[in-house]
């Protein structure tokens, strides 16, 4: 615990120390990264030292004389802390070269401060052990991330996105606090540990209230609306951090609350599972329809949160139905996916950032052929894509397999839970297929083929620090994929302090991790063998270069290539009632048609719904009510008289 607190201090110092040295830009950036890295390393060491300790280490103090602040480090915390400590320095390293050098020094300084603050706040969120500590950390996290989203503040879009984000996060935070308030009222204690004694009804109300708050932070459909706006607006490494780690704090909060409440009612599990499926399938369906690369990735975050929630929901269902294997598989899969998603999503956002930085363009349909121009970015991005599509032998598959296993365990259950579990399997299969469709789209359109519009200047590979960050993450993805056993055990470790293992029960996971490792390595062996054969066959063979065969077209241009829009059109149409496609097309009417064009955009149903059902009516009513402030004093005195009359009559 002391080490983790030291880490906190170092991380915060990483934001504060560079402030006075902003004139020396390189030094400030280097200090920032060095301190962050030192802090995260310390934290990591602290985590591993306490990893196998049975006792939960805790820390507490009093704030403003009366408000107790308590921190505790248990296994769930440790599992969620790991990605934070792992990613923060890598993301910061990427930021070293990604951030513009020509912005004002104070802006960079403020950015570094907020960055450190965000990391520290996330550490605090996971450590928090009572109402006030959690609230403080949660709000600090909101503050820091809000300011980070606002970094590109000259753009109107960024400002709108940041405002939207602030609104969602504040509304969500207030919901969470209300839920905590209910629990406090029922138990009379601020401490998390006491809340399990609340009455049944209070627990359910609190859980659903908090679900709204945590869900909106995590980006669960339909509370995700801020997410596809905020992620593209933020600088890419911030998106990487937010998408990779921050939104997981919503999941963390949900899990923490769930275990605190110790409430085995299946309705909780079913809700979480249902939300997970909705987010997963629709998230990826929308992602297919989006062509702004960062917005697409943002929707994939929604999808992956969906997968995590499916895993956790299955785990909860396992608890509700006393099925330890299902519990273990579900939570292990969900928690491992937290780490996995953190790795590959940050990697992908970094790749997107490199593309945007070098080409100045974020629309898929204008890019192309970058694999040969940015080989490192391209290869790492490809790795990330395979990982996020949940394909073996990379890490995304490991967690999805665990979740599948949990779901298949659930098929054995009785009644609606079995149907839900089957639905979860189908949803996972659909998500997997759609995700690989979506990432073949991204990789294929952006990195492969030819540039879809003339490049103004030759495109160079991104800077060394950016490349290093991406390579490290790509290697991590491969590592977990090929050597999954320790990581699966690690994810399962998250449950140690929360779910009492049934006495004398065998390892719930069985030998799955080892077998999985065997299978992936075997595949790799087959692959390498085949590659060697291919190499042998190609020896002494004539290999020539030529143009792509145009199937009879003599003058193919780069613009004739398939675009992201056309690639995804059919799949998106398949989801039609839930996904709204708007087409702008001037039909050909005359014999000699003039210039015509065609454009189609995919709009978010939830966003439209929010606007139509909530925002527009509120604005309309507010506008109508403005006549209250009418300007005439007689009316104002009338209000006073009226108030008296009403109060005297009522009382």
């Amino acid at each position, binding site marked *: 615990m002391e080490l983790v607190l030291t880490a906190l201090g170092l991380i915060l110092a990483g934001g504060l120390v560079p402030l006075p040295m902003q004139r020396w830009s390189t030094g400030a950036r280097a200090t920032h990264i060095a301190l962050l890295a030192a802090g995260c390393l310390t934290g990591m060491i602290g985590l591993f030292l306490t990893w196998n300790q049975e006792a939960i280490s805790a820390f507490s103090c009093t704030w403003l004389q009366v408000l107790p602040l308590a921190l505790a480090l248990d296994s769930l915390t440790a599992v969620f802390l790991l990605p934070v400590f792992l990613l923060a320095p890598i993301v910061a390293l990427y930021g070293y070269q990604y951030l513009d050098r020509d912005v004002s020094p*104070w802006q960079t300084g403020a950015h570094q401060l907020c960055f450190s603050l965000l990391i520290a706040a996330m550490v605090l969120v996971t450590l928090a052990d009572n109402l006030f500590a959690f609230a403080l950390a949660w709000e600090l996290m909101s503050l820091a991330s809000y300011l980070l989203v606002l970094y590109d503040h000259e753009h109107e879009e960024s400002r709108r996105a940041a405002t939207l984000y602030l609104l969602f996060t504040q509304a969500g935070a207030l919901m969470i606090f209300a839920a905590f308030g209910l629990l406090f009222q029922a138990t009379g204690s601020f401490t998390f540990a006491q809340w399990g004694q609340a009455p049944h009804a209070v627990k359910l109300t609190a859980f659903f209230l908090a679900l709204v708050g945590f869900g909106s932070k995590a980006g669960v459909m339909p509370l995700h609306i801020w997410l596809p706006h905020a992620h593209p607006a933020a600088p890419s490494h911030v998106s990487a951090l937010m998408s990779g780690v921050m939104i997981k704090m919503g999941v963390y909060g949900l899990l923490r609350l769930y275990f605190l409440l110790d409430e085995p009612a299946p309705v909780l599990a079913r809700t979480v599972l249902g939300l997970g499926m909705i987010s997963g399938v629709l998230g990826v369906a929308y992602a297919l329809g989006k062509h702004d690369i960062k917005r697409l990735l943002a929707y994939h975050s929604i999808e992956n949160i969906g997968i995590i929630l499916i895993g956790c929901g299955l785990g909860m269902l396992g608890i509700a139905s006393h099925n330890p294997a299902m519990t273990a598989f579900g939570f292990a899969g969900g928690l491992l996916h937290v780490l996995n998603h953190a790795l590959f999503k940050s990697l992908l956002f970094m790749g997107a950032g490199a593309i945007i930085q070098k080409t100045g363009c974020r629309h898929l349909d204008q890019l192309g052929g970058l694999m040969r121009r940015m080989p490192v970015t391209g290869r790492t991005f490809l790795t990330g894509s395979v990982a996020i599509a949940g394909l073996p032998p990379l890490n995304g598959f490991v967690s999805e397999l665990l979740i599948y296993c949990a779901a298949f365990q659930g098929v054995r259950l009785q009644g609606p839970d079995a149907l839900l579990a089957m639905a979860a399997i189908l949803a996972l299969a659909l998500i997997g297929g759609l995700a690989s469709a979506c990432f073949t789209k991204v990789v294929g359109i952006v990195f492969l083929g030819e540039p879809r519009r003339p490049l103004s200047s030759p495109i160079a590979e991104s800077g060394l620090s950016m490349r290093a960050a991406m390579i490290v993450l790509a290697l991590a993805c491969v590592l977990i994929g090929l050597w999954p056993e320790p990581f699966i055990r690690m994810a399962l470790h998250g449950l140690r302090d929360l779910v009492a293992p049934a006495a004398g029960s065998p390892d719930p996971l069985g030998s799955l991790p080892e077998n999985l490792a065997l299978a992936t390595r075997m595949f790799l062996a087959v692959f390498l063998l085949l590659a060697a054969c291919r190499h042998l066959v190609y020896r002494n063979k004539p290999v020539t270069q030529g143009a792509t065969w145009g199937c009879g077209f003599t003058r193919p241009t780069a613009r004739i290539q398939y675009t992201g829009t056309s690639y995804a059109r059919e799949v998106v149409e398949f989801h039609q009632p839930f996904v709204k496609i708007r087409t702008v097309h001037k039909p050909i009417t005359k014999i000699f048609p003039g210039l015509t064009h065609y454009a189609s955009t995919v709009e978010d149903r939830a966003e439209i719904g929010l606007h139509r059902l909530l925002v527009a009516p509120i604005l309309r009513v507010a506008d109508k009510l403005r006549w209250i402030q009418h300007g005439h004093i007689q009316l104002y005195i009338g209000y006073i008289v009226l108030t008296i009359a009403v109060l005297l009559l009522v009382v």
Partner: protein
Amino acid sequence: MLEAIFFLPLLTGLLTLCLPVRSGRVVLMAVALLHLGLTGFCWLHAPAPHLPTYFGNGPAGVLVLLVISFIFVCIAPYSIFYMREQEMRSEPIFLGCMQLFLGTMSMAALADHPIVLWIAIEATTLASAPLIFINRSKKALEATWKYVLICSVGIALALLGFFFITLALDRAGIDVPLTFSALNEAARQLDPLWLRTGFIFVLIGFGTKMGLAPMHTWLPDAHSEAPSPASALLSGALLNCAFLGIYKVHCLMVLAGLGEFSGSLLIGFGLLSIAVAGIFILNQPDYKRMLAYSSIENMGVIALGIGVGGLGLYGAMLHLIHHSLLKSSLFLSAGNLVLGFGTKLVAQCGGMARLLPRTCLGFFAGFLGISGLPPFGIFVSELMILTGAIQTGHPIAAGLFIAALVLVVAGFARIATDMAFGPVREEVLVPEQTVRIVPPLALLATSVLLCVWMPEPLYETITSTIAMIGGTLHG
């Protein structure tokens, strides 16, 4: 000793009206510092009042007095340099009235006799009217007229309310002096019907002054038209005095066993105020009016906190302190903006970050604070009020509170970000000046400091304030 706190500024204020501008400024500064010193002394040593029939040093009053005094010290130097940019003929009036205003507010904070409290609060209206009018523009004229008339009417009703409370005392047939401290002791014997009626009138009367909807109508006009230091003082200090009046009567009600009644009225008015403020903050074209509506909102929050009781009481007191600090800081920043851009319209104020970076820092940080984000204290207070509302069994109030807060943040965030970072204007009329930057930042820093570390005496003052009506902090 205690009485000197308000006699001093009253005397020097009258004096300043006749002095030349230059010496008037010196007097203002000196009085501000002296006042803070005196307040600090009285706070820590609690001297007995010379006129115990009229004045007393109850903890609530001392708390409000501390806030007033501290804010005034920050505003005084700012206003001197602000007025210098304005080059106004009537500056002596401004300087004098500032001190008179301070004096009347201090008097209100220290009053223990209901009618004396009433006199002091009515006097604050009169002393601050010239401050609003100082620009002599048509709009300022209109704002002043509305301010004086509406507040006078409202406060007159409060007088009626005090008569009813006196009647309640009469009908109880006990003979105690008419002071709050004496009334509190005899609270149980007072006639409940008249006490209730009295509370209604006091609530409406002082509620008018405090800016509770629907009696708030003067507030946006007056705050937007007054010069910014005056707005800061109105919002940061005056509203608290009016609140103090309501709070004292509410205490009486609680002690008389009518806390349920007065509490639910406060909750009702509080929620209404937050909602009304939210409606007007959305798409508000004038940033000073927006700040004014935000004051209404925060007064509503305080009323709500007091109304729900429990943890909410402590939250409300914290909210009072932090709102004063943040809002006066915001108004001072807004003053720099008015000087720099010469307009109060949001649409014409883009690019603050580029043109007035230090003002922008203060303004934006103030916005974050007032939206309830840490490390500013409003975060704690709103959290406690929300928890308190649920704790004491007002879930519906808590729900409405959440909805209204989100509405307010929605309006405020959009305006603040656009102003800070919107399209950049070409030129600045009056450049930034350190003396006008430091006071708002100092106020912000104080809020942060008080959110990190609360001095023991201040904590004790707050707890003894709320202890009177059974506010505890441990559930």
